[in-house]
């Protein structure tokens, strides 16, 4: 069970944060291009989930599997999007992303007025806490 990387995207699709723990193949795209690709995909998938849902108006896109990795997605009502890529044998970690948002993102980024939410996150405290949180998960292996 491995954690590959994490993206945090803002309300308008801007890139707020990216961190990788293990990535065997880079996509040869710039940070900007990769994030735009990610935002486009998430937008399409969320809309798709809502439209094709069996009961009207519900249907939240949470994760997808490929043969090599699993992408977990969590979005706040304010539009902050968390995307975590892990190996395929990891259980859906919607709750973990929610905890990450409430206990780490809110406490170190939202509560820090020196780190605006419209620009890439520049807080070393956030990075430290995020790393510690991810590393202590059962699905993280060094």
């Amino acid at each position, binding site marked *: 069970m491995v954690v590959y990387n994490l993206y945090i995207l803002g309300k308008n699709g801007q890139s707020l944060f990216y961190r990788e723990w293990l990535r065997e193949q880079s996509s040869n795209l710039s940070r900007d291009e990769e994030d735009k690709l990610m935002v486009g995909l998430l937008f399409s998938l969320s809309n798709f989930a809502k439209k094709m849902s069996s009961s009207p108006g519900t249907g939240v896109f949470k994760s997808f599997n490929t043969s090599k990795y699993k992408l977990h997605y969590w979005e706040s009502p304010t539009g902050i999007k968390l995307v975590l890529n892990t190996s395929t044998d990891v259980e859906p970690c919607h709750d973990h992303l929610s905890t990450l948002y409430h206990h780490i993102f809110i*406490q*170190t980024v939202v*509560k*820090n*007025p*020196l780190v605006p939410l419209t620009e890439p996150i520049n*807080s070393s*405290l956030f990075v430290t806490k995020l790393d510690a949180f991810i590393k202590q998960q059962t699905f993280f292996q060094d």
Partner: protein
Amino acid sequence: MESYTLFEYFHNELANWKGFGADKDEHISILEDIGYKVGISLCENMCKDRPRFKEEVDVLRFLCRDFWELCFRRSANSLKTDNAGTYVIQDSEFRTLTALSSGKQFLTDAPKFLAYPCGLLRGALFALTLNAHVTVEVTQIPAAKFKIDILRK
């Protein structure tokens, strides 16, 4: 949402507000003044059911424990004195600084977040009839060291 969180967000914006003008010292002294007035009133309110304090050091102990608890939701770590009117209060995780960083990042911005608390302390001491000069030193966020000099007449 607990009431401290409401204060936390408000104070964050106040401390970081650009409307005070470019002069950093003026910014800090305005915040300190506001804290001073609030500190006086808060202390009046807090002490209405308490007996009078016997000694100066009791006032400082009250500041470190009860006042700190009310304002910052924790007790200060330590109180030191040189018995000649100077006291040093240390707090290893000062509440207005914990979300900023842990270490050296944003160190230059730290004084803005300490001005209002300094004022609070000065106001509280004034309300308890001690005229004091309060300064604070931060070398590593979030640990703060408050130096209180009691001014004798």
